[in-house]
């Protein structure tokens, strides 16, 4: 601690990790409660952060409360390390906490995420922090907070299945593709934040700690390591994840979540891994997809490789 204090590597106009110590303590208490009751939404005194609600204020407060000077931070937005939100949040913590940052999933000790869980399986000791816009999975069907709290308290979750029923009756299958409700540890129905349902199975028995922060709604919830997480479904319409007929155009992966990218205005498009680190890592190891040599596709790939450089130039 002393050594850290001596050579403060962060902007000393701020307390370490931006939030004051009392606030971090309060959030840690909420986190402990959340970990003790998997899937239960713990209210906390959310603070104003220097960015707008909806951009990850909840996730940032959780990250600020769990991060230490020796941590390595990775921030992803829609699976990518190089989008505006990810770059800004990473730079923010570099400045106010002086922590090392990385794009490599395996090197990070804290990963703040929006919309994705990294393709590479997480390890024990890693912390995955989700940014959550709407923590209440029942909200769309039951607008009253007093009522949804009772429903959670008494485990009255029939309404959740009404939502899935509506999907099947309209589309013939469960058409919910993101924010797909899960049952945590056999007790609480939880919204997994807007991750694609492709990622839902990764939450089950994950070795990492998963923390969820909702800044606007001021709720924190968590899934401790090795916890049962079941996606809700019907007996005759079981839960299924998305599948693509294509492989990733750049790295050829067939088991990852793919984004469709429009390349030109002549109908050119490709499907690439949404997890940019996963894709780049595979390409480095020599895996090639069908469009790996295409100049337009390469241009897209290059922009993600150089993001760290641009970020440093920006400072």
């Amino acid at each position, binding site marked *: 601690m002393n050594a850290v204090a001596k050579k403060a590597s962060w902007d000393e106009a701020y307390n370490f990790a931006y939030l004051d110590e009392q606030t971090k303590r309060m959030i840690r208490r909420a986190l402990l409660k959340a970990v003790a009751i998997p899937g239960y939404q713990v209210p906390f005194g959310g603070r104003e952060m220097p960015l707008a609600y909806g951009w990850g204020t909840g996730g940032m407060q959780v990250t600020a409360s769990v991060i230490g000077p020796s941590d390595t931070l990775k921030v992803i937005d829609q699976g990518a390390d190089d989008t505006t939100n990810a770059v800004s949040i990473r730079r923010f913590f570099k400045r106010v906490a002086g922590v090392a940052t990385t794009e490599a999933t395996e090197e990070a000790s804290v990963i703040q995420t929006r919309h994705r869980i990294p393709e590479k399986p997480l390890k024990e000791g890693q912390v995955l922090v989700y940014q959550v816009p709407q923590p209440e999975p029942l909200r769309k*069907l039951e607008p009253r907070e007093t009522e949804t709290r*009772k429903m959670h*308290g*008494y485990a*009255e979750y*029939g*309404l959740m*299945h*009404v939502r899935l*029923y*509506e999907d*099947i*009756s*309209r589309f013939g299958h469960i058409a919910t593709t993101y924010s797909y409700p899960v049952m945590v540890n056999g007790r609480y129905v939880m919204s997994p934040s807007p991750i694609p349902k492709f990622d839902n199975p990764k939450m089950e028995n994950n070795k990492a700690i998963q923390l969820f922060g909702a800044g606007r709604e001021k709720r924190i919830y968590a899934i401790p390591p090795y916890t049962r997480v079941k996606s809700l479904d*019907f*007996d*005759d*319409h079981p839960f299924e994840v998305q599948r693509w007929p294509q492989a990733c155009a750049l790295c050829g992966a067939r088991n990852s979540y793919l984004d469709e990218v429009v390349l030109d205005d002549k109908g050119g498009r490709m499907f690439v891994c949404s997890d940019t680190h996963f894709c780049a890592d595979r390409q480095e190891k020599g895996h090639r997809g069908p469009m790996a040599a295409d100049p337009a596709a390469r241009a897209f790939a290059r922009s993600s490789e150089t993001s760290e450089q641009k970020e440093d130039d920006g400072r």
Partner: protein
Amino acid sequence: MSALVLSESLGTTVRQPLMRATGVSKSYGDTIGCLDVSFTLHPGEVIGVVGESGSGKSTLLNVLSAQLPPDAGTVEYDLRHRGMSDIFRLSEPDRRRLMRTDWGIVHQNPRDGLRMDVSAGGNVGERLMAIGARHYGEIRAEGLDWLAKVELDASRVDDKPKTFSGGMQQRLQIARNLVTRPRLIFMDEPTGGLDVSVQARLLDLLRGLVRELGIAAIVVTHDLAVVRLLADRLMVMRHGRVVEEGLTDQVLDDPHHPYTQLLVSSVLQV
């Protein structure tokens, strides 16, 4: 009391009552909602509660259906596994379970009883899913079955209730409540706001369902024609008190209390 006499005179055995209210009172500050109401309801029996606006009918119904705690008195219900129990002493989850399985509540305004942005099938299936049904095909089949029972077109099963007419919404509400085979339903002005021909059909339907399924009901209305058709027994309320009660035909054909006489004579004879 009259039910007891009746069942004895018919030579049947005395059955366990389904619900018993004793000295139920509820006031809002100085304003009296209902005062010292007592009655016994037997399985399969339909009790009508009539009276003009402000006579405490709806307050009484809200207390009986556990939506409003009374100031004094008890409401006991014959729970399937525990026998007669005071519904206000049940734990909240137990009471909520009772309300969505063994009871049904048909609101005057279907908007209060339906989820307007969930399809008709989803509305009917909600109670089934709430008690653990997890097979889509079965839930849907049951939903279609109930739509047919309340004379709604099966092709409307995926339409939202907001596209339904008032009468259809009311019938959907009934289907949604009956799907778990409740033993008691509460109805607050079930025909309110419907035109006369639709009222007649709804009443016909209700009478059929109540008789066929042997459901007990407490029907609150200001419409004497509704109770004449539906109710076995009648309670006439005024200023929060029950001023007269008895068999429906007896009360309506030979009213004793001056207020009941006024009420009966005010009905327009066509």
